[in-house]
């Protein structure tokens, strides 16, 4: 639990370093706060004990806690918070299992063969490959992290990260169902999302710096038996991505309860303002990409173009994703990547909307 975490303070980075497999700093480096010796004697308080104490307290104070959230607003917050998590859990687990498979069972050489050699060509290839991942954005973050660890060029992994939640068949079908009278919305969404993803990948090739990315230190899988490595990767990613998902869900629930819908009404009539309003709303609401089309359809007072921007921004930048990306790739990455994606998505979404809708 020491803040002096070697893995986050080492300055020079190589792709191998990111993987954590060649990290000497990850060696024993005893925690100054809890000397090795102290822990080997009786009366130790480890996280299992803390957890047990916490759980006992929670059960004992269950009724006061329940009474605490009986107010209508707080109750709605709790319902939305829990439901965002329940909705996301299957996709999170699916993404975590898939990323563990990538990490353990797919050899590194596979990616070198599967993707074009030249990074500039690998980006669109990885973006289009997003079609095959049937899920929402919670699953794609650990997968993209796993791809980078396995030596896929970050630009391609990022293109995949952005494209997969937006252009897969489930999401496009949901969009078609939500907009029965505007089938062009499906084309516009798929096209605009792919363009944004590929643009961001190329942008990363030109401007991105590898040292911005700090993947969390993961147990050294290469030394373990396959099954053991698989479960270690699963455990690590569930705890890590799941923790950040909880943060994001709490933020989304807060916005959901706090922002009154009347505000939206007042900006809907202004063409420019409505685009920015819905782009911001997409970030704040953090709705699963499989559901956002239905929400967009219900925002009928807004123009189709602004709703397209809502659908393009949502799966790529939202509170939940920013939280998970910060956890997976590091803060220095997230503060650059999220705003750049946001701006690109607005520009591309508006342009595609102007042409197609």
């Amino acid at each position: 639990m020491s803040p002096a975490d070697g893995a986050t303070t080492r300055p020079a980075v190589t792709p191998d370093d990111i993987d954590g497999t060649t990290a000497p700093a990850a060696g024993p480096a005893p925690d100054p706060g809890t000397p090795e010796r102290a822990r080997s004697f009786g009366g130790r308080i480890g996280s299992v004990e803390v957890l047990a104490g916490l759980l006992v307290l929670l059960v004992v104070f269950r009724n006061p806690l329940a009474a605490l959230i009986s107010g209508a607003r707080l109750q709605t917050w709790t319902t939305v918070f829990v439901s965002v998590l329940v909705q996301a859990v299957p996709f999170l687990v699916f993404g975590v299992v898939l990323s563990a498979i990538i990490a353990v069972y797919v050899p590194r050489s596979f990616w070198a063969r599967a993707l074009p050699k030249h990074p500039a060509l690998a980006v669109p290839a990885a973006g289009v490959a997003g079609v095959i991942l049937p899920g929402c954005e919670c699953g794609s973050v650990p997968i993209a992290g796993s791809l980078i660890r396995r030596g896929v060029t970050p630009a391609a992994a990022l293109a995949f990260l952005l494209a997969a939640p937006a252009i897969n068949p489930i999401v496009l079908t949901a969009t078609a169902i939500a907009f029965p009278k505007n089938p062009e919305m499906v084309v516009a969404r798929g096209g605009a999302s792919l363009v944004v993803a590929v643009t961001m990948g190329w942008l990363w090739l030109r401007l991105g710096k590898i040292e911005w990315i700090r993947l969390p230190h993961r147990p050294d899988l290469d030394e373990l038996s396959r099954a053991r490595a698989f479960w270690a990767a699963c455990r690590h990613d569930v705890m890590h991505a799941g923790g950040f998902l909880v943060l994001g869900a709490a933020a989304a629930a807060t916005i959901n309860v706090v922002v009154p819908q009347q505000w939206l009404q007042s900006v809907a009539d202004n063409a420019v303002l409505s685009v920015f309003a819905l782009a911001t709303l997409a970030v704040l609401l953090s709705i699963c990409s499989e559901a956002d089309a239905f929400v967009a359809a219900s925002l009928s007072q807004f123009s189709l173009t602004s709703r397209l921007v809502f659908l393009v921004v949502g799966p790529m930048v939202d509170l939940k994703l920013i939280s998970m990306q910060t956890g997976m790739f590091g803060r220095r990455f997230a503060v650059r990547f999220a705003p750049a994606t946001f701006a690109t998505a607005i520009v591309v979404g508006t342009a595609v909307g102007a042409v197609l809708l």
Partner: protein
Amino acid sequence: MNRQAQAVVMLLFGGAILRASLTDVYLRYVKEGLRPVLIAAGAVLIAAAIMTLWYDLRPHQPLDGDDEGHGDEGHDHDGHGHAHHEPRVGWLLILPVLGLLLVAPPALGSYAAEQAGTVLTTQNSASDYPPLPPGDPAPISLLDYASRAVFDSGKSLTGRNLQLTGFVTPGPDGKPMLARIVLSCCAADGRPIKVGLTGNAPAGTPADTWVRIVGVYTSRVEKDPVNRAAVPFVEVRTWQEIPSPRQPYE
């Protein structure tokens, strides 16, 4: 957070998900169709927890030595792993466990319905409406009633007794309305469908009470002040309180 504590948190989290999806609790939060994948996800979480504990508690084995050499998970032969590389953010996963196992918040109700505009928009309507289901009164969902009343001028509704189910929510003028939350995916995207009540409307019934009303079509339509969408009315003949239904959403 060491690996054993992580395993316990995963076990609780998976258990909470599994418990919610094996009972009807999950219906308060997500669509019914998500159930199989929820059960699968809960099972994977529990499996990951058990495998973590199994590997962690197993006595010495050759691979453990290698493990320790790399330090990230080593020093655990006393059962207390070297924690500083482990994700501390994982502690937050206790919150949803708490939410699901101890609190289990109720389905969205009248507070959410008041906050948001009615979901009825042109996008929701099909172009032609099939005849109502048989029966007197004919059971019909709020969304179906509202669509037929607003976009079809009630043509397919006239002359029939209708049975509508929803919860009571105060309208903008303080008079009770009938509402139900429509989900497309999870409660975060839930939007209310609202129907105004005239005639023998429930009076003095507290908000969030579930009622089943029998009534007939009336042409009265007002605007929802939140999003200016149409809110049709129904003329109530009789009504009764009912326990909240198994599936609270439409």
